[in-house]
């Protein structure tokens, strides 16, 4: 699905990612954990193609193509989805219109016809039911005035609508109550198939009870410094990050 090799990225002259390596195969779920400021959101942004970052070294192959040479929108159209840690508000633009535009742009890119209003609306109904999103939220302006939890749930709704190949979830669980957490997990699990993959960035092992990862990685100072199975998450929960930090004082 995606292979990241020796990725170095900096912002405003400050190097954040410092030789990051990661391979995710189709059908897998990877969790990325790590202390605040380690570079987790940076990794997500760099993969999604945010302008502000400068890639100084490394390569990323996504489904056989050089991801870093694609524009942000083409990466999305190729099936990369990012659930934002801080979803953005777009006043005056309804969620429904936003998604319809997105879906039709993606379809156009693939040479497919636009989705009819009828098919689109039935998709909205199906997916909003899946993530138990209040239908009122679907017609409201994108994230405007949504509660923190509603914003996160809206990200999952969008993910369900767009059905990406690779979903990157950046702390989608933070700020969620326990029911919402279960619902978000359900959304992710529904998407799961032998053809798809997910990278789940989280601070809490709790989420991983619902979304069971195949691998857990620790990102520290811009590198993946430890990789394990889901038991690693439990270990981190118990011991914190100090033992990792101590083992990598000079990364």
């Amino acid at each position, binding site marked *: 699905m995606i292979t990241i090799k020796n990725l170095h990225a900096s912002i405003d002259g400050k190097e954040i990612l410092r030789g990051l390596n990661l391979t995710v195969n189709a059908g897998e779920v990877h969790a990325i954990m790590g202390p605040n400021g380690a570079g987790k959101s940076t990794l997500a942004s760099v993969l999604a193609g945010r302008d502000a970052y400068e890639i100084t070294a490394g390569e990323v192959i996504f489904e056989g193509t050089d991801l870093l040479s694609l524009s942000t*929108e083409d990466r*999305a159209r190729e099936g990369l989805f990012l659930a934002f840690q801080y979803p*953005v508000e777009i006043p*005056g*633009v309804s969620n429904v*219109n*936003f998604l319809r535009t*997105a879906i039709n742009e*993606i379809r156009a890119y693939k040479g497919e016809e636009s989705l009819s209003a009828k098919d689109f609306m039935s998709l909205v109904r199906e997916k909003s039911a899946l993530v138990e999103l209040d239908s009122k939220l679907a017609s409201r302006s994108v994230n405007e005035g949504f509660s923190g939890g509603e914003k996160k749930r809206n990200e999952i709704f969008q993910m369900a609508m767009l059905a990406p190949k690779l979903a990157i979830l950046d702390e989608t669980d933070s700020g969620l109550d326990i029911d919402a957490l279960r619902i978000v997990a359900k959304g992710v699990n529904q998407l799961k198939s032998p053809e798809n993959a997910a990278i789940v960035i989280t601070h809490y092992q709790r989420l991983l009870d619902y979304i069971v990862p195949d691998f857990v990685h620790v990102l520290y100072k811009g590198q993946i410094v430890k990789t394990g199975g889901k038991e690693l998450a439990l270990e981190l929960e118990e011991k914190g990050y100090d033992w990792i930090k101590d083992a990598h004082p000079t990364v």
Partner: protein
Amino acid sequence: MANYTEENLAEELENQEYKFGFVTPIDSDTIPIGLSEDVIRLISNKKEEPLWLLEHRLHAYNVWKTMEEPKWAHVKYKKPDFQNIAYYSAPKQSKKYESWDDVDPEMKATMAKLGISMEEQQRLTGVAVDFVMDSVSVATSFKEKLGELGIIFCSFSEAVQNHPDLVRKYMGTVIPTTDNYYAALNNAVFTDGSFCYIPKGVRCPMELSTYFRINAGGTGQFERTLVVADEGSYVSYLEGCTAPQRDENQLHAAVVELIALDNAEIKYSTVQNWYPGDKNGLGGIFNFVTKRGICHTNSKISWTQVETGSAVTWKYPSCILKGDHSIGEFYSVAVTNNYQQADTGTKMIHLGKNTKSTIISKGISAGKSQNSYRGLVQIHKSAKNARNFSQCDSLLMSSECGAHTFPYIECKNSTAKIEHEATTSKIGEDQLFYCKQRGIGEEKAIGLIVNGYCKEVLNQLPMEFAVEAQKLLTISLEGSVG
């Protein structure tokens, strides 16, 4: 309506074949350039006008000669040479083709490429609509219906010929002949425009737009519009066209007067898309318009405008709230790109008791353009319990453009309540990134964000207009983020 606009927009934006204007060379009946009493007499004569109108023109001309061009607006341009303008030009185009088959195939092809609807094509070419199968029923039933209700909707020249008493009674009552430099010039040399009268108690059953105004020629350089809504009547009037309009005339100075008698309501919507000049700021129309309405007791005037065109715009649709309980509204979106300059806003003059006004202005500046909001809220002593709410938002698309707000408030009655809100924001990198991450390309993302930003104003427009206006906003801002 809230539902349809966005949904439809998304769809319509997909076939965005709508591009910049076309110029069709046309022969016209033009008098020599220059301005003098003789030229004015000639215009009046060609139009077979009554003596009072000629005198009106001459008076305006003589005062205009003593006036100075206004300098207070936040715009810079080279003063037009008034002796280098031809003041009368009847384009051959306005002579009707006998049938659609007679229209130059090349012209038809161009319009088809622009995605202009068949009906609109026919209007632009001035085909006698009655001869065209598709439109026969529309046009005829339209005219019949209006006629039955006693509604008069015709060109200004026709009104002068057929309804001279009405024209004479109301013309110049809202905007005095010598109100300002360009209004005075318009009074001296105006050639045509529109006239509309809605009789007492009549609710005009359809949007009146020049689109349906059969027999109307080109708009002309010095357009004159007069809309009178008699007691208890209602009309929604549409001016302009979203199709890009090129014009040989650099200077446009229209005068629009609205009169809402007791308990009447006028909704006036405009889309202005004159040629803005090229990317380097060359060419383009100067649009210096005077628009004002007067509200009598318990009446309402609402101005909605979407301004995307012209090199220089100078325009303040205003309301004189003379009658008690009258209401004035102003909803505006003004977009400037490249080297465009716009100085636009409104004046709300509160004279009557319990008068209310609302101002919603959305300025969007891109490129190296300058966009100013200039508004005056004036509460007179007599205006007990007057209320005003103003909201002026500016959106910046680049770091080289300018947005300015000049809100003036003059309040002479302590019972008044005036609220003013203003914001300035730069188009969000975050918003653009979010859209792109969902697969939406930059142009469409800008279109979405900007249309969302202007929604309050766009929602005021009648349906067909709103859809086109949204498209227009997107097109006007193509390639503008930087």
